[in-house]
Each structure stands twice: as structure tokens, then as C-alpha cells.
């Protein structure tokens, strides 16, 4: 925390640190972190796109921020994605933003979420639906907040990405909101326009387009494979 303190002492307004990912047994799985120093509005627009497209804002526990940055009314309306809200708030009112690759926090991959044991596929799926619905609604809300600002395009990226994931979850219910339930042709084209940000992850990008249109049985089989792999990683 001394490093965080030192950063804010010299005028940083938003700080995102690297992290060490461990499993339930404490085994280190990987280290994650990025390096950036951003000053000024012009740089922030470019940086916002880079961060949003690569989900570099992830994990609230990696974030330190000036309290004044969080005092926007719409931040209170965040349901689950506080990391995204804090980053977006910083785009509007932080002068200096830092991405520090040094890992200062430990991120635990485990099979519990909010007290729910997720070691069975069905429990995991139920929780995934619940959470993804909240994340999607956060992204939709934020997209409406930033409409008409220089960050609209970057948040649109997050919103479309979350919508594709929602549509890819087997058994996702209709939400009664056409903005969330359907992917319009214009949105597909817009998503494809983000392709340059995925140039090193083309397989992943193809999957985001393919998964929502798979038949239910295939979606379920794919989700089960991912679940089993994640569970193995979590319990070591």
C-alpha cells in the first residue's frame, strides 16, 4: 500500500495495479498487469478504447482512486461492475491515470460466489445467468450515461461484448427489452469493427460471434467444458 500512497502523493488520481492470480490452494496461476501513464483528455480517449477492448479495467481490488472521482451520482447505480464504473468515472474527472504492472493484490480463483457453492455445473449455470444479467444491465446503463461523450464508442464495445456473452449462455431467458434480447445487424457490424483490437486473439473473437448462434445443446456442451476446466484450475 506504500506504493499506492506514493502514487497519490505525487498527484495520481486513478491507479490500477497488477495482480497475482492464485487458486484455492494458494498455487500461483499467473501474474497479470499492464503499464500506462495517461495525462490529458486526448490520451484518455485512446486509452479508454484500449482498456475497454482488452478488459484491462478488471477487478475492483486492483483499483485505488480519489474519492472525489467516485462522487458522480451515476456511480451509485452500479450493480455489480464496480471496476468498470470506477474506470469510467475516472475518464471524466481524473487528470492522471496509471496502470502499474507491479502486482500489489492477490486475486483468488475459487468455486464460491457470494456464499454459493459453484462446484456443480447446474449451480454454476444458474449463478452465471444471474451475474451476467446484472453485468449486462450495468453495461447498458453506462452506455446510456456516456452517450454523446468521447467515450461512447469504448463503452459500446463493453456493452456489445457483454450482450454476446449473455446470448451465449445456454437457457438465458428473454428480458423483455429488445436492446438486450436481440443482436441487430448494425451491432454485429459494429462488433466486427472492433476486430483490430482482437488481432492477437482471433479465435476468441470468432467464438464471441459464433457462440450466441449455436444450438442450445452445443452451447451447453461448450459451457460445461469451460466450467470443468475452470473448476480444475480453481481447486488445483
Amino acid at each position: 500500500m506504500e506504493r499506492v500512497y506514493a502514487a497519490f502523493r505525487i498527484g495520481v488520481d486513478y491507479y490500477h495495479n497488477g495482480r497475482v492470480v492464485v487458486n484455492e490452494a494458494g498455487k500461483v496461476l499467473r501474474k497479470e498487469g499492464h503499464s500506462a501513464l495517461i495525462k490529458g483528455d486526448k490520451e484518455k480517449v485512446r486509452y479508454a478504447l484500449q482498456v475497454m477492448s482488452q478488459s484491462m479495467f478488471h477487478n475492483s481490488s486492483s483499483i485505488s482512486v480519489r474519492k472525489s472521482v467516485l462522487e458522480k451520482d451515476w456511480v451509485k447505480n452500479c450493480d455489480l461492475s464496480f471496476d468498470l464504473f470506477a474506470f469510467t468515472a475516472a475518464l471524466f474527472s481524473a487528470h492522471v491515470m496509471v496502470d502499474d504492472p507491479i502486482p500489489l493484490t492477490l486475486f483468488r480463483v475459487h468455486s464460491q460466489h457470494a456464499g454459493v457453492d459453484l462446484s456443480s455445473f447446474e449451480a454454476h449455470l444458474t449463478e452465471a445467468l444471474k451475474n451476467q444479467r446484472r453485468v449486462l444491465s450495468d453495461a447498458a446503463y453506462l452506455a446510456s450515461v456516456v452517450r454523446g461523450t468521447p467515450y461512447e464508442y469504448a463503452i459500446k464495445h463493453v456493452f456489445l461484448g457483454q450482450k454476446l456473452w449473455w446470448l451465449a449462455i445456454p437457457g438465458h431467458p428473454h428480458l423483455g427489452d429488445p436492446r438486450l434480447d436481440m443482436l441487430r445487424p448494425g451491432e454485429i457490424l459494429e462488433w466486427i469493427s472492433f476486430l483490430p483490437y482482437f488481432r492477437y486473439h482471433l479465435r476468441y473473437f470468432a467464438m464471441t460471434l459464433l457462440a450466441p448462434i449455436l444450438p442450445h445443446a452445443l452451447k451447453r456442451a461448450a459451457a460445461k467444458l469451460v466450467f470443468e476446466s475452470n473448476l480444475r484450475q480453481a481447486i488445483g
Partner: protein
Amino acid sequence: MTADPHISVIVTAYNRKKYLLGAVRSALNQMLPRDLYEVIVVKNFRDEAIDRELEERGVVNLYSNDVSQGGKVHEALEVAKGDVVSLLEDDDEFLPESWNGFTRPSG
């Protein structure tokens, strides 16, 4: 240079008790002098052992029924004394400074 900051570490927990004290202890065991930061826990449960330790270690302990992350953080911000906020989810931890080879300055 700006004025010396004061950090409020906000730890949020919802239903899960298993990792919470580990998260809090990781914040309290940092090298930064304790008068430069405070720790605030916002959680939706009461637990005798956890609440006792929080009280003994001078941690601000808030009870909140708010399911949303934004709501919980907002409640902590209402009482936070710091001008800088560090967020910590209950299942994550701050690494000890020694992990990165940082050492406490002598003298």
C-alpha cells in the same frame, strides 16, 4: 506534489465469510503506517468472531443489506475519512510488500 493523502480501504462482502478476515488482515499488515489509512468493511451479515476481530483491530464495521456493489461502496464512502479509496473484495488480498522485494525503510 499534492497534499499528503489518507487512504480508506473499503472491503465489501456479500454472504461469504470464508475469506473476509484474510482480506482484512492483509490490509492491516501493510508497511504503510496505520495513521495514514483506515479499513472499512461493508457486509450483509453479522458474525460474532469476525465482528469481534474487526472491533479489536480498529476496523470500521458497517452492516448493509444492499445487494449492489455500488450501493455498498457508497455506504462506505459516506463514512470514509480518506481522500483516496482502495477497493478490496472479500475474496482478494493485498500482497505483503515483501512479495515484490519492498522492505521497510530503516531508521
